[in-house]
């Protein structure tokens, strides 16, 4: 166990690929509503995984990641609704622009934020996220204010993304590529130094690493992926409003990472699936779903410090503890 109580779980790539293939096959067989939820979960997972890079690998807990989701989403919406850009092959251009804008915003915010750590980092990212929310709300001529912006239709370039299944596959593809890129990143020497910074920043500094720069770059990369998530997110429901960048979205993202298991990448996706299932699926079944959501927050923190991905390790620990007890019991019985 590390100083921060997080472990980096190693999951063979083959298993992840197998699960992805399974999802790709099974989901389209369910109803349209489930396909839509799965699409939303996959799009949001990209944001959650980007937050995991910050939290799980660099040790920076940010309460403002929704800002990057927001700029990506608003960019997509404004270009589509006002200028009719991004609805054909130029969709791919918007994707690139979204990532660049997310990264640029993170580059700007990072200048303020990266000096801080711990609680102060939480607070400053919260404040920065709220500034973006304030802009989305006030800048009526650009963002439509609280009315939001309607995208109108999904892009078509050879394939028609208005079809739910087609769009699902597209988002799944982006998800896979994003996860792969992040996986490569955290396995790289850069990624390993991030973990080093998470564990013992002082030691890294003494060893000569520019820890500020490492953290800053991680922050910018996370912002870029957040922007990508935003572009996809805008197209899932076709509406973008200040609600996209409200504080609860950032808090949900943080919960998703912790719930799934920080430092595992896959955990973010798992957490996203669970939280979206609770908010958008469970709420169609029972009226008291808010209690379930609150309880999930509380119980995860108390009993699953390493999230859902940490459950197997927990079970192994329990078994090991039991095993020791049995062994000592046998020893004393036979003596």
């Amino acid at each position, binding site marked *: 166990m590390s100083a921060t109580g997080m472990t980096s779980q190693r999951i063979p790539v083959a298993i*992840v690929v197998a699960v992805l293939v399974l999802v790709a096959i099974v989901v389209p067989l369910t109803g*349209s509503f489930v396909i839509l939820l799965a699409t939303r979960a996959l799009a949001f997972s990209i944001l959650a995984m980007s937050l995991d890079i910050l939290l799980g690998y660099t040790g920076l807990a940010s309460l403002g990641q929704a800002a990057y989701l927001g700029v990506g989403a608003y960019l997509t919406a404004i270009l589509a609704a006002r200028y009719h850009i991004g609805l054909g092959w130029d969709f791919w251009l918007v994707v690139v622009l979204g990532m660049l804008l997310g990264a640029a915003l993170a580059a700007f915010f990072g200048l303020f934020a990266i000096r801080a750590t711990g609680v102060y980092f939480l607070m400053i990212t919260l404040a920065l996220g709220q500034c973006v929310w304030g802009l989305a709300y006030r800048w009526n001529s650009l963002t439509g204010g609280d009315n939001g912006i*309607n995208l109108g239709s999904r892009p078509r370039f050879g394939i028609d993304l208005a079809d739910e299944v087609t769009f699902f596959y597209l988002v799944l593809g982006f998800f896979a590529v994003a996860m792969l890129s992040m996986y490569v990143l955290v396995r790289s020497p850069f990624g390993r130094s991030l973990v080093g910074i998470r564990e013992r920043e002082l030691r890294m500094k003494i060893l000569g690493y520019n820890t500020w720069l490492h953290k800053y770059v991680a922050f910018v990369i996370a912002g870029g992926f957040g922007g990508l998530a935003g572009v996809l997110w805008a197209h899932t*429901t076709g*509406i973008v409003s200040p609600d996209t960048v409200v504080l609860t979205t950032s808090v949900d993202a943080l919960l998703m990472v912790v719930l799934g298991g920080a430092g595992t990448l896959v955990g973010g996706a798992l957490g996203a699936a669970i939280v979206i299932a609770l908010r958008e699926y469970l709420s169609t079944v029972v009226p008291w779903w808010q209690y379930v959501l609150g309880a999930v927050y509380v119980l995860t923190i108390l009993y699953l410090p390493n999230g859902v991905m940490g459950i197997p390790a927990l079970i192994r620990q329990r078994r090991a503890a039991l095993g020791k007890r049995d062994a000592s019991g046998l020893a004393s019985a036979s003596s």
Partner: protein
Amino acid sequence: MRSTVWGGVAAILGIGCLTVGASAPAGAEELRIGYLAPTTGIFAQVGTDMINGFQMYLDETKSTFAGTPVKFIVEDTQGKPDIAVTKARKLILQDKVQMIIGGLLASEGYALAPVSTAEKTLYIAPISAADDLTQRQLDKYPYFFRTGWTSSQPSHPFGQWACAQGYKKIDAVAADYAFGYEVVGGFQKSFEDCGGKIIQKIWPPLGTKDFGPYIPTLKQDADAIFSLMVGPMALQFPKQLAAAGNKLSVIGGGTSYDEFVLPFMGDEVLGHVSALQYSAALETPRNEAFVKAYRAKYGKVPGYYSESDYTTALMIDDVMKETKGKWPGPEQFIKLMSALKIEAPRGPVSFDDMRNPIQNIYIKKVEKKKMFGYDKEELWNVVIKTYPAVSQFGQYGKAEFLKQPVYSRDFPPCKYCE
């Protein structure tokens, strides 16, 4: 290795659970109505009032419209437009409803209207008042129908009333969002066209409760203050205004004093005048029966949230009666609904050719009295003047009105702002 198997199992279980919940078979020969409102979160009470209004009519008719059983499915939007969209899709694609109703915020209205177009499903909005949905943007939404009001609809006759009172200069203070802009915009246009002047426009952010920064800046040479407040703002503004020693007359938009907030207000609002298409104090037999029944059932005086939904249910029933209980498809349904002329608790209602109601607008004043045989003196919005058959264009011709841009923070421009 084990942890990854776990991951796989979890994923399969998760997907399996979701699959189980997938499409349920649609019942034959029933009218399935999907309702979208916030039932959790900060707007939960408003959502509840909306649903209760609709539900009361269903209970009166034993959930049967013209012999056809009605299946009423309510989904929680949580006050978030994108969740409203996912729930709407669920209602349409999974529950196979013939129509979706509801939406509270303007953003929800603007989010749901495109869904209705994409899925070719009727969407009726009893509350969402965003002007343009039935004005300059109507063509985008052929399946959209509004049974409530537009934000500026009551403001047009209200401006004329203000002129008739002899007001010459008015300060406007309104919540800083689209609804506020549209209510004030309509009032300003109408008031200035009959000789009045808006000499100040202040926009406290939505959710402001401390009006300390704003009240001292109100120009004292005005004849009256026009305020547009919603929710908690509506409670605090008049109190703080009175405490600051205000001597000017106070008038306002309908939501500043409607029955959602009125029971929690005090004597500081006595004499305040507002305009809306409904007041619970409307002294007609139809309304008296409605108010008494609603209050007996839900313990509170109904406001326009409840009346609008009750009346919507009534309208749907009337159309179903014409088709002898058979669902005629969305296009025909809209045609029949547009041709309706009914007596609702709010009075006579018909529709213009842009699918928005033509209805009475009531100028109402807050008074403390006993009404409808209740034995306590309470605050009521007593109707002091009725403007009959007001459309969303008010006293203006449709073509001329549509030429101007939608009311916004800067339109109409504040020509007389000192």
